[in-house]
């Protein structure tokens, strides 16, 4: 039984202003190409960083984020205004990340993991020991099912309801997965608890 509350957009919220996402989408659908540029400018960094947080390295962020906006460009007319634009955008982004990770997994059968690791490019820190980087790596070690809701919550600030919508699951499941992800991280980062506190 799906107990997820589908967000019904009240009529009062459909009064658009020039700057909000809905008005930009409407403008684009009416033929204003510049509205799409403004939509990209508003969300590109969120999308790039969501991909970065999800994949754990910066190598494929550019390609995937561009692919995300290409899909948005071609499918924006199908957007139904029943949820926030960001929910829809994040769903596309997460699905692209999933596709990418699946391909990487398939490819890893044919290449040595070591060489893959050696090429990994991350945003480096000038410090030799960067607690943030350690936490980021621990997040990357989370199983995908736990990683996505945690990143959407703690990195993107989405509500449980939005996360449930993005991941097409139930709110109870989101709550449980975020809890399990934090328990996983607590155990994983146990040796660093003093540095974290």
């Amino acid at each position, binding site marked *: 039984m799906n107990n997820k509350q589908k967000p019904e957009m009240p009529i009062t919220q459909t009064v658009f202003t020039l700057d909000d996402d809905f008005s930009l989408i409407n403008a684009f659908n009416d033929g204003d190409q510049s509205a*799409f*540029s403004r939509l*990209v*400018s508003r969300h*590109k*960094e969120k999308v*790039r*960083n969501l991909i*970065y*947080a999800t994949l754990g390295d*910066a190598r494929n*962020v*550019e390609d995937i*984020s*561009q*692919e995300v*906006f*290409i*899909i948005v*460009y*071609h*499918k924006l*007319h199908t957007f139904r205004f029943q949820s926030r634009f960001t929910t829809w955008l994040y769903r596309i982004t997460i699905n692209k990340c999933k596709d990418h990770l*699946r*391909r990487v*997994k*398939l*490819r*890893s*059968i*044919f290449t040595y*993991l070591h060489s893959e690791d050696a090429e990994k490019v991350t*945003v480096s*820190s000038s410090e030799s020991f960067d*607690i*943030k980087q350690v*936490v*980021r790596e621990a*997040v990357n070690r989370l199983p995908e099912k736990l990683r996505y809701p*945690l*990143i959407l*919550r*703690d*990195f993107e600030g989405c*509500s*449980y309801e939005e996360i449930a919508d993005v991941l097409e699951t139930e709110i109870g499941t989101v*709550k*449980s997965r*975020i*809890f399990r992800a*934090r*328990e996983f*991280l*607590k155990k994983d*980062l146990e040796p660093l*608890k003093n540095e*974290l*506190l």
Partner: protein
Amino acid sequence: MKITNKILENLSAYLDGELTPEERFETEELLKSSPQIQEEYQKIKSLKDAINNFKPLPPDEYFETRLAPKLKTGYNFLDKYRIPRPAILFAGATVILMILLQSGSDFFEEWFSQGKSGLESFYSKNLTSLLMAADLTNEDLFDFAFNKNLPLDETGNKVLAIGTDETGKEFLEVKYAGAVQPGLKLNDFYRQFNLNQEQQNKVDSILDSYSDRLASVVLVNDKNTIAVNPELWRYHSRLRQDLLAYASSVNREAVVTAFGGESEFNDLMREPEPMPVPVMPASAENYYFITPDSIFFSRAVVDENRIQNDIARIRKRVKSVSEDDRIRLDLSPVFSEQGELTKSGSMRVMINDNSIRVVIPENISPLEKNRDLEKLASKLDSAFKQLKKKNMEFKFDMPPVAGSEFRVNVRTEGRSGRASYSYGYDAPDMVIIKKDSIKKIKPLDSVFISKQFRETHFPDSMSVEKLQKLADSLSKKFGKDSQWFNNQPDLDQFFRDNFADTSRIFKDRLREEMRQEWLLFRKEMNRLREEMRRFREDLNPQKKKQEAEPIEIRYNIET
């Protein structure tokens, strides 16, 4: 107060502001009353803060600039719904089409075919026989016959395996060689059935004949594509049968013994239908394609003549170069034509860090289900497991002089590879036996163990039964060599002082001690086995098992 998962889960949601008013009230009360819960709360909060503070990527100022040109080309098939097409463009396209149609239909056929099977054509380019690409030897083919593995490259890092899963469905698997259990080797086969040189040559010729037939069944290319014809399963069964039939014709007794007795062997040999030799060529023009990006099933007609010519050419060149020289292969694509099937459905694919397993869907499996053949295959499997167990040797080197180190050497040359172990035993401890310490003969926990592995494989076939045999032999040897103990001055004195019939008591007591030691020895061996398993895992980090995730891959090939 016991902190339950429910409390922790609510703490986590409380921090996110996602609790109902009632839950929030309960959680706040708990926080006020319990320092432990406060501590847990702080831990979660610290983690949340750390993730919140992830360093973002530097902003990309030129993102839109790079995106703009891609927007027009990224999703052409959708553009038609968005961008109105002026009639003039349509008219222009029609004119161009007419001109091209007049110039010849080949262009369109090619273009249309490429459009339909872009992926297939890309990955099927330059496919050539695995036999040549991986430089397969007769040992490899033997390994395939009995262990169902074929190396996929010259270095043998990856193997192609076939098998049947727990639900009885055939599967194909590409995996790292490190994840493969070593099996019966060709030399073991020769030795097991005492085949002389001439007979070994005959086995080689059987393997040679199959190598020709296998040439068009497994194909690979530089894009890491592996194309497998379903005939592979048939060849596997028949090759194994032929080898077995030949072995039984030259040394029936040994084969019968290996298969656990006359009745079992007769049953095994009576069961199969007569298999035509030579084996049918790869007639089914269907291949399973495993590529780095996708897995699909497609019809492809292999140019058999091309492959056979290549083989002949390679063999000619092999004869003209020395063994150490490498031959550079220069082979042309082997597909003479490529077509489509009218099947659709989904394939179940299991992927973990070590392997990718494709379960062959029944509706595209052209394998004829032959119950007798399947029954035979399962019997052969169990029989060869027996063979694997029997093919072990133990040697014991008894100590030649008193007071020196006493060593037990165990050598195994079995299906699981060769391994040699040497157990050092501190002999002086044996000769200073005192009346009250006779039960304290230094047990195996004091034994230092040196291990030499000619190969890194630990014999997984070191069964309890075999170890028992080892212990019994050890015990017998001690019985025979008890004279050695009697020659020891300390022991002589000990026996003279304490016992009338020293030799009998000595033997009885010693046997008892040996039994005790055997139990310790067995325990130690189990510990060692576990240790070696971990050691192997450390050497091959990819081998750490992860639960395979099933992926459903749709295939839909239209006519």
